[in-house]
């Protein structure tokens, strides 16, 4: 694999971070297009919301397949295809005049683009490009890149809409997304080394399905998806309902976004030094305490800041830890596929969190029950992490002892 010599771990890490920054960051700003697009095109919010919900579903369902292709044939073509679909989807969003066209562009095309250029595929390449002892830190770094994209692309999207209008802003974002395409070159040729064994994909799936730890990890990851989407969507509305200003709602979101960068990297570093399941246990415990205090204490600037920082630090720290744990238990050969299945659990949790938050508000006129449910879920997720057997599966032990 002489042609792959320039693809040093640092290059793979840098390019993987840029891909995640763009793919995760751009979609983060889509919500800002809701008011101007629905107003100009005469759509209902449901039209817009359905396409975004579809996008999340397609992303979650498509990612295991994208992961499997990446594991089998290398990630470059998957990221390249994902980048092209993503950019084309964002570009066509600008020209969508009907709900169906928007479903296809924003929902299906961007969703599939995310499957090809999201966590599952990129983190699989990064994990394979570094030595096992540095894997967790590398995953934390690339996760921090994605987190930075989520934090910074939202204000960028707003600036573009304000300066050049929503139509041109979407075209500008589409052009930026195209940067994913050349980045894919650095992610080529990173399928597992022959020493990773001759296990088939089917055997890997059966092995994971029979491993209790895989399901415990997937269910805890589902809790993460539930909580993050609920907070991201409903927190500003909750704070405004409690008589606080929109500025305080945005401060909380900005703090979550910023400290998410720190948390993603920090969790990667901690995961490299300590037991990953124990870090996950403490992460969910901190979330439970933070949410419980947030609803129990009077809402002040200090509590909002404290909540924003605590949630930010624990926000996507689950991703490098979960990915690292899957790699640690099952090896890296089918990491993209297996992590993507766990990520599907995360996306199902996201769907439920967005939906249940709104439903409970409509039924009870308050978010209080959902907050309490979030605390309960955190406790359950923390409890689910501890019984996970972190040891690698027996299949991997002889080959690792030779290495």
């Amino acid at each position: 694999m002489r042609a792959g010599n320039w693809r040093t771990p640092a290059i793979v890490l840098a390019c993987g971070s840029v891909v995640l920054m763009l793919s995760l960051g751009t979609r983060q700003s889509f919500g800002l297009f809701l008011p101007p697009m629905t107003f100009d095109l005469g759509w209902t919010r449901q039209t817009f919301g359905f396409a975004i919900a579809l996008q999340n579903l397609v992303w979650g369902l498509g990612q295991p397949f994208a992961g499997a292709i990446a594991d089998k044939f290398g990630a470059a073509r998957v990221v390249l295809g994902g980048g092209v679909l993503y950019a084309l989807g964002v570009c066509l969003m600008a020209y969508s005049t009907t709900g169906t066209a928007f479903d296809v562009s924003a929902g299906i095309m961007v969703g599939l683009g995310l499957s090809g250029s999201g966590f599952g595929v990129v983190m699989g390449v990064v994990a394979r490009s570094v030595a096992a002892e540095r894997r967790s830190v590398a995953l934390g770094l690339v996760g921090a890149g994605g987190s930075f994209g989520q934090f910074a692309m939202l204000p960028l999207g707003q600036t573009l809409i304000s300066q050049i209008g929503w139509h041109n802003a979407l075209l500008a974002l589409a052009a930026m997304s195209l940067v994913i395409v050349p980045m894919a070159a650095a992610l080529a040729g990173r399928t597992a080394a022959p020493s990773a064994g001759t296990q088939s994909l089917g055997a890997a799936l059966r092995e994971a399905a029979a491993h209790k730890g895989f399901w415990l990890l997937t269910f805890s990851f589902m809790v993460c998806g539930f909580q993050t989407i609920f907070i991201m969507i409903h927190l500003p509305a909750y704070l405004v309902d409690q008589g606080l200003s929109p500025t305080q709602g945005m401060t909380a979101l900005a703090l979550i976004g910023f400290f998410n960068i720190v948390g993603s990297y920090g969790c990667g570093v901690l995961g490299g030094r300590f037991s990953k399941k124990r870090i996950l246990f403490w992460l969910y415990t901190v979330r439970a305490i933070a949410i419980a205090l947030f609803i129990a204490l009077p809402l002040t600037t200090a509590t909002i800041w404290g909540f924003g920082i605590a949630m930010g630090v624990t926000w996507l720290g689950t991703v490098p830890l979960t990915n690292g744990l899957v790699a640690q238990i099952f090896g890296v050969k089918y990491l993209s596929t297996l992590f993507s299945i766990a990520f599907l659990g995360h996306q199902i949790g996201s769907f439920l969190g967005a939906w249940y938050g709104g439903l409970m508000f409509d039924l009870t006129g308050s978010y209080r029950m959902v907050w309490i449910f979030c605390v309960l879920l955190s406790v359950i997720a923390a409890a689910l992490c501890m019984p996970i057997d972190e040891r690698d599966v027996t299949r991997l032990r002889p080959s690792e002892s030779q290495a």
Partner: protein
Amino acid sequence: MIPQPHRPLLVWAALLALLAYASYVSFRIYMSPEFLIGYANLFSC
């Protein structure tokens, strides 16, 4: 020429400076009236 051992440090310093600047600009935009209006609208239905 910058000595070889110092180069990674310089890259990290440059990246951190860039991150700090981008974060500062982002925070300012998060708090701008246009952003607040745009984002608050999402939750008014």
